[in-house]
């Protein structure tokens, strides 16, 4: 117990002494956006326990509570802090659950992209030859189509083929699958370039002489030394995937209305705006904007901080 405590303390101290932490403290925007992003992540993780209502539970919604305004406007109800939507669901709970769903899809889709792009890029850079040519021409082909257009076409056609009801049963998994498969070339291209620069260095030759297998060298020797640009891409891609998912849900080919994401909430609230009820569409939009902006700012800072060119210039 005591040893674990000491160890934890030790790790924290080591982290605080690192370059990354010092740079984070020096950059005010990055510091604030990291804190915002972390708190949004914690909120999303704790959603089932802290949200006042469960928007997926139809027992808790009452149509008589529909279209109540948020707390700073006249006619609000103290039970619903941010007002209610057209079905009488609490908007705060819906936003929290939407945040959870958006981050969930972003995380798994980026994990899929990362795994796929990294393994293909490693193979292409390390083995060369026909594997490299095949993988890279596939990547170029994929890049000419936009990933968002590809996702919209695929999911729209799947929806038309399956019917709305069946489609919405599977849509979270379909979203992860399609958004994950649609955007791997960036990782592969970046990683291939850095593997090509890395694989003729002496420590790789030493590993060969020591008799390590190719797989071991690729994963434990080359990958750790080429990881930092990939981390930046992955961070940016989380924002990209969340944005794409929101657009898909807005077009009603994403998450179902019974278990909405932030984009789906906005899509459902858009019609109410014409009667002056702006909060159903715009409050989830504000949450989405905060999330995307904080991810983009963190990614921007991470790119500068992990760039070896910048290491000498900063204190």
């Amino acid at each position, binding site marked *: 117990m005591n040893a674990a405590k000491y160890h934890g303390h030790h790790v924290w101290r080591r982290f605080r002494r690192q370059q990354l932490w010092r740079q984070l403290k020096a950059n005010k925007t990055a510091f604030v956006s990291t804190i915002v992003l972390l708190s949004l992540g914690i909120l999303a993780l704790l959603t089932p326990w802290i949200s006042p209502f469960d928007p997926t539970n139809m027992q808790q919604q009452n149509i008589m509570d529909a279209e109540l305004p948020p707390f700073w406007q006249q006619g609000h109800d103290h039970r619903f802090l941010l007002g209610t939507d057209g079905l009488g669901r609490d908007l705060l709970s819906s936003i929290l659950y939407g945040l959870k769903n958006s981050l969930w899809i972003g995380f798994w889709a980026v994990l899929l992209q990362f795994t796929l792009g990294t393994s293909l890029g490693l193979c292409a850079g390390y083995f060369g030859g026909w594997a490299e040519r095949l993988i890279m021409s596939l990547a170029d082909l994929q890049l000419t*189509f936009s990933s968002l257009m590809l996702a919209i076409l695929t999911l729209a*056609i799947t929806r038309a083929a399956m019917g709305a009801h069946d489609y919405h049963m599977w849509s979270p998994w379909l979203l992860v699958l399609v958004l994950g498969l649609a955007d791997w070339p960036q990782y592969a291209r970046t990683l291939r370039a850095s593997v090509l620069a890395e694989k003729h260095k002496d420590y790789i030759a030493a590993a060969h002489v020591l008799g390590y297998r190719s797989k071991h060298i690729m994963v434990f020797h080359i990958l750790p030394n080429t990881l930092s640009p990939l981390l930046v891409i992955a961070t940016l891609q989380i924002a990209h995937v969340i944005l794409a998912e929101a*657009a898909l849900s807005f077009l009603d080919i994403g998450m179902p209305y019974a278990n909405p994401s932030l984009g789906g909430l906005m899509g459902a609230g*858009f019609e109410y*705006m014409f009667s002056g009820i702006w909060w159903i569409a*715009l409050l989830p*939009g504000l949450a*989405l904007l905060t999330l*995307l902006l904080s991810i983009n700012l963190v990614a*921007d800072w991470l790119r500068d901080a992990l760039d070896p060119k910048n290491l000498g210039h900063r204190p």
Partner: protein
Amino acid sequence: MIYLPQITRRILTGSITIVLAACVSYWVLSLITPSHTATLSLGQYLNNLLHADFGRSQFYNLPNLHVILEKLPATFELVIITSLIVALFALPLGLYSAIAPRQKLARGIMAFSLLGISLPVFLTGSLMVYLFAVELNWLPAFGRGDLVWFGSWSSGLFTVSGWQHMVMPATALSLTLLPLFLRLIRAELIQVMHSNPVRLAQAMGIAPWRIWLRYGLRNATLPMITMASLQFGTLMAYTLVVETLFQWPGVGSLFMQGIIRGDGTLIAAYLVLVSIMFLLFNSLTDLAYGLFNPHLAPGPQQTQKTQQHPL
């Protein structure tokens, strides 16, 4: 490897791609309306496409080509006006923020571009609808307004109401692409401004505006063409969203309605036409690339690969 002339190779790969897209759209058709493909074989379908017969829409009960061509001018005008807005704003703003990166205004432009990247197009659209259409009642929120007909081409660019209807969709759409191009131009120009040829030109006493335009912007054209060809698909995807949001009667909203109605033949026809459009646009950007890149002289010289270092 067989070496074919550039143009032959391009036509060959293009036609293969179109045949592949047609096969995919036949498969999609068989998924959505199996009863339709029961009487129509793949060969017949391809033969029909060759004779510009895209089938009949089940909802409109009209030839699909007719339905799509009727909606095409709306999308085309929206995309053209959007590209004009992006070009008009991205060039001067990018130039300015590259020349004076430490000025307050330049920092403001960069902050705006970061905000713009994070701003979803449907959020800007919703905000504009709420502000300008619902609260202030300045601009109409949906449709195209009064149209002028030139033969079968309907244009909204010749009436006041047409322009009023154009403002919000085109602004929302251009706000998605503007930050990307702005950042690209700025990054390119900053790099160019620290290069040796520019230092030489400055030392020779050439006027600054001449350096910016002739050395700076000219060097930024190639990355911009690359970016344009890469972002064309994204623009089409966002056009779909914007058309749905503003009920713009274009091809994108036609496709989304077709999805909701389960109109299989229309969806299949849309897929074929979109792949043709992609090909046309990619060939166009390739041509532009050849025109603007001094290393890639068009024609047979390309095989010699006389790439020289710029300095």
